[in-house]
């Protein structure tokens, strides 16, 4: 735990010291804010919910995660600092968990900044707080899973652009399985839908906490973190 704390803190500080986290956060806030506001305007301020924001946020988070995580391991490989890290008395799994935790901290900070949308709703309207709480829980889950995919993508290359592209590819693929599911016949459609990043999210928006959804997002997270550890271990064999 100590090692994870030390590495995660360093990662979080690196994020604060570079423009990247601020830029993606600003873009995320700008876009999701636009959706939030236009939805309210479109319903003539009758539906005081986060629907507009959430429709955008679920997908935007994938982009956010792919860009935010691309440097985590790839940059170390390029700089040669990976040799420094891998020869420190630290387990590979600790490295992966710490890098993941550092990026989760940024995600959490960013989501905290969006809390001012529900705050506006509370001040000027009478929103249903239950779905808002479950939505944020869902955003953390989908965000965490996306960051895990990003950590894995960053672990297989020393090129940050490649890492972002791989992460984006996997994430969009998993997202649009939901769309594909709608065209697939019966059983297959259900399987695809269960595997889709997108299809578990609406429940949270509607205030439903479905265990299957939680299990799904946590499994994706665990799977890609595990793959990242394996990728580092494989790298040690040259």
């Amino acid at each position: 735990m100590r090692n994870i704390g030390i590495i995660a803190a360093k990662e979080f500080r690196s994020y604060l010291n570079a423009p990247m986290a601020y830029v993606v956060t600003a873009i995320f806030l700008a876009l999701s804010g636009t959706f939030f506001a236009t939805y309210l305007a479109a319903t003539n301020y009758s539906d005081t919910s986060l629907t507009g924001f959430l429709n955008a946020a679920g997908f935007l988070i994938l982009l956010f995660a792919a860009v935010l995580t691309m440097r985590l391991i790839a940059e170390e490989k390029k700089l040669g600092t990976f040799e420094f890290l891998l020869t420190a008395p630290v387990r590979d799994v600790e490295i992966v968990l710490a890098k993941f935790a550092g990026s989760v901290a940024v995600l959490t900070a960013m989501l905290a900044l969006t809390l001012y949308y529900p705050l506006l709703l509370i001040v000027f309207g009478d929103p249903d707080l239950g779905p808002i709480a479950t939505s944020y829980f869902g955003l953390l889950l989908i965000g965490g899973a996306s960051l895990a995919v990003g950590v894995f993508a960053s672990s297989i290359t020393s090129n940050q652009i490649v890492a972002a592209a791989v992460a984006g590819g996997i994430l969009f693929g998993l997202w649009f399985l939901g769309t594909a599911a709608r065209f697939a016949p019966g059983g297959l459609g259900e399987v695809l839908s269960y595997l889709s990043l997108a299809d578990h999210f609406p429940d949270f928006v509607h205030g439903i906490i479905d265990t299957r959804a939680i299990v799904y997002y946590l499994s994706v997270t665990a799977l890609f973190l595990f793959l990242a550890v394996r990728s580092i271990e494989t790298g040690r064999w040259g």
Partner: protein
Amino acid sequence: MIRVKNLTKSYRERLAVDDISFAVGKGEIVGFLGPNGAGKTTTMRMLTGYLMPSCGEVWIGEYNMAAESLAGRRLVGYLPETAPLYTDMTIRGYLTYAARLRGLDRKRTKARIDEVVVTCGLADYVDVILGKLSRGYRQRVGLAQAIVHEPEVLILDEPTAGIDPIQVAQTKALITELGKDRTILLSTHILPDVSAICERVIIINKGRILAEDRIDNLSDTMKAGKRLRLTVDGPAEAVSEALSQIDLVLSVTFEKPHHYIDYSFDQEPQAAITRVMVEHGWTLLAMEPAGVGLEDIFLKLADDAGSIH
């Protein structure tokens, strides 16, 4: 402190390290000498746990690196071939990170950093961002991170490569000092480096150990006088004259456009030469080893080995 048995590494089909065995005793300073591509870096990466061997075993202290890598790594300070620096951190931030990762508590970390920046000549730069440092200073920071947790074993991959002659001299003095109470294995492809600091050398070429002996026992070829080739922007004759005044220099010859300096294998005239250049306001465009090159020695050693069999 370091024991290596039948160590082998192949990258796909390329054999980089070929069945080598050696040991470095507690408190020894051993040079790992070989030309580029000999397998030095690959070997050191296996000693430090960065790379897994294809075959063979490594012990650091009492720990087998295959089974107890973490315990082994705790004993080691490692300077990789290119100093591994996070370009966005300050020297202090980086050394703090290094010390904390190797298990020092906050108080000890702070105390050690204060010591180590003085030892490595970084005291005035602790708040400088690593990305802004020159090559020589990067190397110093690399050395500082390797010693910050006071490891029993130091593994240094070409600590003197790519830095200027004065810094080479400083680095060698620092390594000698560190070696008083530590086990050190350092690699280099430059002969004067090992003869000046190491008690013993292991000579490696094409992944195999060619020779392993104390410096004073090594063949005459290795002990022969040494040569430097200088390229100086200045009046040739005056330069020759000034250079021959240096005590450590045996003779000076000028063959347009280079000056050649002969000196004894156990001397290091580089710093004095640089000083003379500065005093006279001449520009030293290049200074590099010439004459009895390592290649010659490797050829001869390979030859000797061949004639035995």
